[in-house]
């Protein structure tokens, strides 16, 4: 299975440019997953021990509010990366992620990766700098969303 995942993973924008040795390490922690429409990939407050690279489909990031029920705050699609709580103690999800349509993804075992990053700082740096870019983009997007620019 890992043989077949390597070329697929090498094509993912998130992993582009990673050297072969590090890619191999990631492939060792990766597997294919599939979710039907309506199925949850992860739930708030559960342990965050993985992250996903979405290959096909669409996933809604939802936050549950007692008065208004679940609110969709963002959707992710092909090539997007889902989840960075596995990087930050106490390693718990802060939101729900639900497949809106049939979704195929690569799931990476965060626990296994945390160990590998401890042993190989170069790998840790490569991964963190990639996640930092995603976090920065999401922060900008959240700011724009908060401004509610289309209101007036």
């Amino acid at each position, binding site marked *: 299975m890992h043989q077949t995942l390597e070329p697929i993973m090498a094509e993912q924008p998130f992993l582009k440019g990673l050297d072969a040795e590090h890619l191999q390490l990631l492939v060792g922690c990766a597997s294919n997953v599939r979710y039907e429409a309506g199925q949850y990939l992860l739930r708030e407050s559960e342990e965050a021990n993985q992250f996903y690279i979405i290959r096909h489909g669409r996933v809604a990031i939802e936050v549950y509010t007692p008065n208004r029920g679940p609110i969709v705050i*963002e959707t992710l699609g092909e090539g997007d990366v889902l989840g960075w709580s596995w990087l930050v103690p106490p390693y718990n999800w802060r939101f729900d992620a639900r497949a809106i349509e049939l979704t195929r993804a690569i799931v990476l075992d965060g626990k296994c990766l945390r160990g590998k990053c401890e042993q190989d700082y170069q790998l840790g740096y490569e991964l963190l700098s990639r996640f930092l870019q995603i976090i920065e983009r999401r922060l900008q997007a959240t700011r724009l969303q908060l401004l509610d620019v*289309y209101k007036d």
Partner: protein
Amino acid sequence: MKTDIGTAGPGRQTEPTLDDPILPRMFQVRRIFSETADSFSCELQPSDGEVMHFSPGQFNMLYVFGVGEIPISISGNPDKPKLLVHTIRSVGPASKAIRRLKRGDLIGVRGPYGTGWPVKGAEGNDVVIVAGGIGLAPLRPLIYRVLAEREKYGRVALLVGARTPGDILFQRQLERWRGRLDIDVLVTVDKAPRSWRGNVGVVTSLIPKIRFDPATTTAFVCGPEVMMRFTAMELEVRGVPTSNLHFSLERNMKCGIGLCGHCQLGPYFICKDGPVLGLDKIKKLMALREI
């Protein structure tokens, strides 16, 4: 009358002249219909039968008798000028008064004014069109023109952002365009109920989802100014040359023809040097808070 216009700086490209038409022409309302909860389109026909030709991106001053005059971009098809179409958000007295007009009522129209989108300059390039909210209206004539001459352009993408699914302008038309194989149409909303199966997120989040060659891409952007600033940043980061980024700006207007100075932005009069301006000209001005 020319005395108070000397305040415009060295960047002015066009000198105002009194040959500019200042008297409104009479148009008759043919149809007014809702687009979203707070916006509508109005189709006008010239009372004198003489059609108004325009370039995509130009605007008219619409005069509602007894209420006032407001600048509104033309949102119809430039290749079908028999009907003059505007799409308007009801925000205040003049726009609400237009909404109340009935078939056959008269409205004064001055124009078409301003610079259009530089469509010719984009020939041979990939084209990225980014619209936010009512900003899709001034872009629609450009979309008609690009699709009418589709073979002249590389990849074409239309990215549309709206507040909620109910606020998406021209929904049926977007669906039709999405059905074509020669244009990528992506839509996103800032907020949505769970029943919405489309994208949720800001319009800039759609940029990584489309394919274009940044070095040979021309982008046309219209929407709230903050949204345009964020879009500019994202496109520049991806390598689209600043000189290929074009924006349609809004400022309060009175004369619409470069005489009164109401619409001044730094050295530019938006009514005459704009409303469409290249980012290379306005980048510094857009970053200033009070202009």
